[in-house]
């Protein structure tokens, strides 16, 4: 990272930050709401495994609708817009340039929220497309795509007009992410969400390609791009080895993009073989990212105590863990046991709520005071948020992963009845529901900080407006003076 940035940021950074205030409040505010919605839906889905009849008479809240709605609300409602917000800020800061067309992302954020609302509602009333991670009905997909392009225009514009010419590793990751989403989302939506639905198993193949490139690659690009900006910033050291970073980036995009086809998929054998091979090679960028992070963070002497540094470091740890779990579930031998179990669910939740969300929380807590020109209203709650989320993620994901392994082993043995194989997972699911609850509490604190901050700012705005209205206008006073004279 540019070690000089801090010195000459002084001249323009307040202007840059001010240009991002409204767009980021719009993106983060919506994201915080959707995160809570997604977690509440996830909690409802989780409870159904302890009490199958819980809310079962309400069609909108049947497990098969709530579960995908929860996943999508977290991914599309929270991860993507919040990630885009952080991305805009990082790009503007690195470009030394106030956001170009700041109203465009504000419009886009609102559009995006409408899209997610239609999508979530669509799933709940039974209009899901039936393709994992692409459940949102057509109308929602069109809106999301348009909103993404608007934000990409603003991001690219800011980069195009930049004052600082140097390029940093964060640039590569974030730009690749800007390219990735429109490509994969348009391909998958055009093929799976229109009347041109291809025949048979081509559908799941495209679905796997899309899901892998969104949930694994896209989130990795944005999350790691963000971490590679903030980690050196906070620890006050440059990013260790930018050659390594380039290597990590290239291996991630080249190998990561080929993962996703399960080993047992009922498709021509070369597809799962290629994917398994790619997954094995994906260990390389995962380890490279781990090494870069350790080298950058180690010995920085910055203690975190639940601050942004903690969030981001823990986020990278979760990335490495979830990446390794992903590789494990792609290897032909282990996938035999892990496939179709809770293990895969645990891995995606770790990716979404452990890795990505934690990095975004950390970045948001770092960015918000800057764009609002004041400290967080409840800095203690932000720290509590860290411990709740970190603890919650561990409690949520680890039992599920163990449940997956146990379930998989039991299912491999036909002597164990299906109901018994299922039974071994239930006590683990119970613990994981507790974890979900903690994550939800943490998300409420996050939302509280954002909304109180927004309200304070709006209040101040209204006050200054009233003050401006109340203040006597110069001519008016002059006139009154004249009247008095007459």
């Amino acid at each position, binding site marked *: 990272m540019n070690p000089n940035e801090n010195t000459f940021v002084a001249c323009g950074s307040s202007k840059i930050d001010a240009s991002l205030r409204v767009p980021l409040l719009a993106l983060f505010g919506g994201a915080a709401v959707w995160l809570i919605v997604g977690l509440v839906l996830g909690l409802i889905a989780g409870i159904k495994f302890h009490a199958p009849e819980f809310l079962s008479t309400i069609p909108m809240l049947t497990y*098969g609708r709530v579960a995908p709605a929860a996943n999508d609300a977290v991914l599309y409602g929270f991860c993507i817009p919040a990630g885009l917000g952080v991305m805009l800020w990082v790009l503007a800061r690195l470009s030394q340039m106030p956001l170009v067309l700041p109203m465009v992302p504000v419009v886009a954020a609102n559009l995006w929220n409408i899209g997610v609302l239609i999508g979530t509602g669509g799933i709940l009333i039974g209009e899901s497309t039936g393709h994992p991670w692409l459940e949102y009905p057509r109308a929602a997909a069109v809106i999301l795509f348009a909103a993404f392009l608007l934000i990409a225009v603003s991001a690219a514009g800011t980069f195009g007009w930049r004052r600082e010419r140097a390029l940093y590793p964060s640039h590569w990751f974030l730009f690749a992410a800007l390219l990735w989403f429109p490509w994969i989302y348009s391909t998958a939506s055009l093929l799976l969400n229109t009347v041109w639905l291809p025949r048979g198993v081509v559908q799941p193949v495209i679905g796997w390609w899309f899901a892998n490139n969104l949930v694994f690659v896209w989130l990795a690009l944005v999350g790691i791009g963000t971490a590679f900006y903030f980690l050196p910033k906070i620890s006050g050291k440059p990013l260790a080895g930018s050659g390594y970073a380039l290597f990590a980036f290239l291996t991630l995009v080249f190998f990561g993009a*080929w993962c996703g086809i399960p080993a047992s998929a*009922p498709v021509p054998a070369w*597809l799962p073989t290629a994917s398994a091979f790619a997954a094995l090679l994906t260990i390389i960028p995962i380890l490279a990212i781990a090494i870069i992070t350790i080298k950058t963070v180690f010995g920085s002497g910055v203690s975190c105590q639940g601050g942004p540094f903690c969030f981001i470091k823990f986020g990278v740890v979760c990335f490495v863990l979830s990446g390794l779990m992903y590789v494990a579930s792609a290897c032909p031998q282990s996938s035999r046991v892990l496939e179709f179990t809770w293990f895969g669910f645990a891995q995606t939740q770790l990716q979404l709520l452990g890795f990505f969300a934690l990095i975004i929380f950390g970045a948001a807590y770092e960015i918000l005071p800057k764009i609002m020109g004041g400290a967080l209203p409840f800095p203690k709650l932000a720290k509590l948020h860290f411990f709740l989320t970190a603890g919650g993620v561990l409690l949520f994901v680890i039992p599920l992963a163990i449940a997956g392994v146990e379930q998989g082993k039991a299912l491999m043995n036909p002597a164990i009845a299906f109901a018994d194989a299922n039974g071994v997972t239930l006590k683990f699911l119970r613990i994981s529901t507790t974890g979900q609850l903690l994550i939800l509490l943490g998300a409420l604190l996050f939302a509280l900080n954002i909304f109180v901050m927004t309200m304070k700012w709006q209040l101040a705005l209204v006050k200054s407006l009233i003050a401006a209205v109340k203040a006597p206008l110069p001519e008016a006073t002059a006139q009154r003076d004249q009247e008095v004279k007459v």
Partner: protein
Amino acid sequence: MKNGIAIVFAAVVALGASWCGLVLAPTLQLGGAKLTTVLNSPDTYPLQRTGEASLGLQIYRANGCAACHTEQVRQDGIQAELMLTALGNYQPEDFKAFTESLFVQQALEPVTNALAINLKGWNGSLPFVFLTTSDKEIADKINQSINVPGVKSELRIVATGADLARGWGPRRSVAADYLYDQPVQLGRLRAGPDLANIGVRQPDANWQLLHLYAPKAVVPNSTMPSFKYLFAVRKIGAALAPEALKLNAEFAPAAGYEVVPTAAAKELVAYLLSLRANVPLYEAPFTPVTTKP
């Protein structure tokens, strides 16, 4: 800046390559997939679903049954199985002695141990599976050697694996099974059993309806949520409707009321009963069961 262009170019190549490999190529290779023929039979596969069953797939999709159920059976491999079905005028002892006389053949060496053990444990009842081996050639050879008038044996191909041993199907699922599915509902979690062959395993429509209305009414320890909203509870008219569910006291509605399936429930069950991936195909061979061992 040159750097920057190179990086963007690399990203485009990376994603473009995977797009060609995992989107374009499968679309070209499989998108034009046609019907296949059933092994050793002139029949084509798969059959087009009836209109009602196709509508049922949409109910299945809309209610997210795939969140808990897969429609995909896996197998570990295939094995050849030799089954003795008739002995004619011979006694079991004659068959044992004859088979043991084959043991001197060098080519049979890999299976003689297994054969000896199987023959020893045989009480003379038929049909009798006397050899299971992954080596089809040896099985063929033995099958020909014991081809004596009166003695009948069958060489059968069976697929093996945990899913199959659970009775979820006679072979693994292959691309052809999903040819007509829009959308294909493979599923990714087995919180419930695999349904690729539920139409074979549980062909009783009434059972299926009862199970959807109140899973615990037919599977006491079921953790499947009920889908009561696919049914209507209404006052009994002049007489009990013929399609009214026959529920036991615990699950029955209030006196004077009956539970009838809505069109959606009937379509869903039609779809479930249409899930039958149980014919042998070139890419997934097995010998259908004609004589139960």
